């Protein structure tokens, strides 16, 4: 079976890329910065630094993929926008494709010979 590679989207990245982790965390509801750090560490085992976290938040907000909701004391929660949801879906689909191909190849059901596409 031959499979054309999925086109790479603006969301493309590794599963542990900060923007993907942040979008994934916000998929279950709004969170502020520190809650994002805790959630990401809990579900991905990745300890993001505060600078990395806010660098990614700034870029995601600039691209309209997340937005701030009303300030809550000294914190400001963020939530996923519709565009952010679409980008996250595309990124997860891309990762799932890789996971599926890898799993099939490991189990030997893909029929591909090493180095030669099936």
């Amino acid at each position, binding site marked *: 079976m031959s499979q054309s590679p999925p086109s790479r989207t603006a969301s493309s990245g590794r599963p542990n890329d900060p923007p993907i982790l942040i979008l994934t965390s916000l998929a279950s509801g709004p969170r502020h*910065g520190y809650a994002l750090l805790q959630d990401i560490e809990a579900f991905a085992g990745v*300890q993001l*630094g*505060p600078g990395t976290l806010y*660098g990614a938040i*700034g870029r995601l907000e600039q691209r309209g993929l997340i937005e701030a909701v009303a300030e809550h004391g000294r914190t400001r929660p963020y939530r996923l926008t519709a565009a952010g949801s679409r980008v996250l879906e595309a990124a997860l689909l891309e990762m799932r494709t890789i996971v599926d191909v890898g799993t099939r190849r490991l189990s030997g059901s893909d029929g591909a010979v090493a180095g030669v596409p099936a």
Partner: protein
Amino acid sequence: MNGVTLRLLLLLYPRAWRARYGQELRYVIVRSTAAGRSPWRMGADVARAAAVVRAQALGIVGAGVTRHDRATGGCVLVLWAWVAIAISGAGLQKASEHWQGAVPTGDRGLATVAFTTVIAAAVCGAVIVLAGVAVTVPRVVAMLVGGGWSDIRGPVRWAVGVTVIAAAWTLGLAIWAHRLGPVQRNGGDLLYGAVVMGWGLCVAVTLAAWTAVASLLARQIGLGRRLLVTEAVLAAVATGAMAVMSVATLVWWRSVGSVAPGFFGGGSVATPVTAAVILMAVATVLGAAGTARAARALDLI
């Protein structure tokens, strides 16, 4: 992490970024510190992230900016690369000032050609960079007349401040040097050597401060496509000059090292020359990256 360190770390970010995210970032750092996370690792992470935010704000890195910003950022990166190579060139000049005395007259041929090439390329590059600055002057004047002074007032004041300090330092150093003998001036007086190093650092900070002002201006004045193409071409030539300087320095280094290995025997020459060569190579790579970024943004390549 204590309050002073925290404040200093936040100052690494651009003011607009601090106004938007500073309070939140501070809260996360304080909570993370209380949770036992390493302040050193957090400090390094914040410093690195601040450098990225600043580079993005200048259009030097990142794809999420306009073509115009990427082209401007590429040219600005070349300007920073030039400052780095100018500093390294000055260090090389100082460290190598007595090399002719260490090399027999008959063996100086290649080294002399290489050293002259370094100086010639430096002069050419400086002229090109000044030309790049000069073509933007009418736009800068128009921006200032149009009320743009308030946007650059802070960085200009800072640059003027460090310039005054550098000038005073230079004057004091010149007076002191006049009272010392050649041996004391060339490594014999440790205190003098330390003050000279401090002076070099002060001059480097002054250059960096004015380059930061130029970078800010480049973003504010909004160069049109024609001017940007001119700047990109000048940036390419300046990068070529940097490459020539780097290669010629390596040739000079190797040539002198092969006929007078003793010249680089002491750390007082070998260390600064090595540092200068490394900085030159880094500057040339940065210059090439900046030129490529500007040229790609303008569809020149």
